């Protein structure tokens, strides 16, 4: 893929990709590295995920995140994200959301965060994660209900 095209993707999607990775991995520095890595890999890649740019870049990012988690051989650690987290309006709620997210199955969490932070459509999430849109709908719904149960 041409550099100018990837530069455009980078300018458009670096923030949602970073936010997704940061929340999914619960690791700011790793999210920074993997965000760069995702776009650098796009330089040498060709369109996938049904030709949908956003789905494609998120597909690369989630694959990198999965590799990262496998390399660490553990689930994401729920430690404070750093200085930025103190800006939350209600730190107790933020911790509760983190704790609730940690109890959700990793596949469901991934789909949920791709929707909430990546802003992907069902079709894009399906393309990025290799599942059907109906499966995405079902997972999202199940995750929301589970989180709602825990947070209320």
């Amino acid at each position, binding site marked *: 893929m041409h550099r100018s095209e990837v530069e455009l993707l980078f300018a458009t999607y670096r923030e949602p990709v970073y936010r997704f990775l940061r929340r999914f991995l619960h690791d700011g520095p790793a999210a920074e590295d993997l965000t760069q890595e995702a776009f*650098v890999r796009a330089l040498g890649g060709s369109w996938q995920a049904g030709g949908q740019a956003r789905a494609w870049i998120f597909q690369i990012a989630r694959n990198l995140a999965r590799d990262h988690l496998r390399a660490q051989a553990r689930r994401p650690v729920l430690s404070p994200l750093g200085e930025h987290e103190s*800006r939350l309006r209600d730190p107790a709620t933020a911790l509760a959301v983190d704790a609730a997210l940690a109890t959700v199955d990793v596949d469901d969490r991934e789909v*949920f965060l791709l929707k909430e932070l990546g802003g992907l459509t069902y079709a894009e999430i399906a393309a990025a994660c290799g599942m059907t849109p109906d499966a995405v*709908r079902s997972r999202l*719904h199940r995750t929301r209900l589970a989180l*709602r149960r825990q947070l209320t």
Partner: protein
Amino acid sequence: MNETSTQIISAFVDNEPVDPDGLAAVLEDPASRAMLIDFVRLRQEVAGPDVPLPRSLARLRSRQAVARLPIVRWSAAAALLVLVFLAGWMSPRPLLSSDDTAVSAPPQPARVEKFVPGVDWSFR
């Protein structure tokens, strides 16, 4: 509130196509309205505050720069080895001076004692 109702709310929150009449019917139920508000609130909490983008993401790294990194590291290591070798070679070596004969030859005697037969050496 049944499974279909909650799925309609979830799809609506996700900006996916929903049947307006179906949505209207679902939202007549106060429990469904409460669920809708909870889903919106959940989204807000998950998104959290606007975290500033790290400086490292200000621009895209070049692929060549990433690929060059190992080469640069190996070159730096090789240069360091050469430097260490040269430093060792050029450092002063007191036990191996360039004038080896000066080190190996014995010093000249300052005084020569001659043995004379018949002299009593035990005499003080």
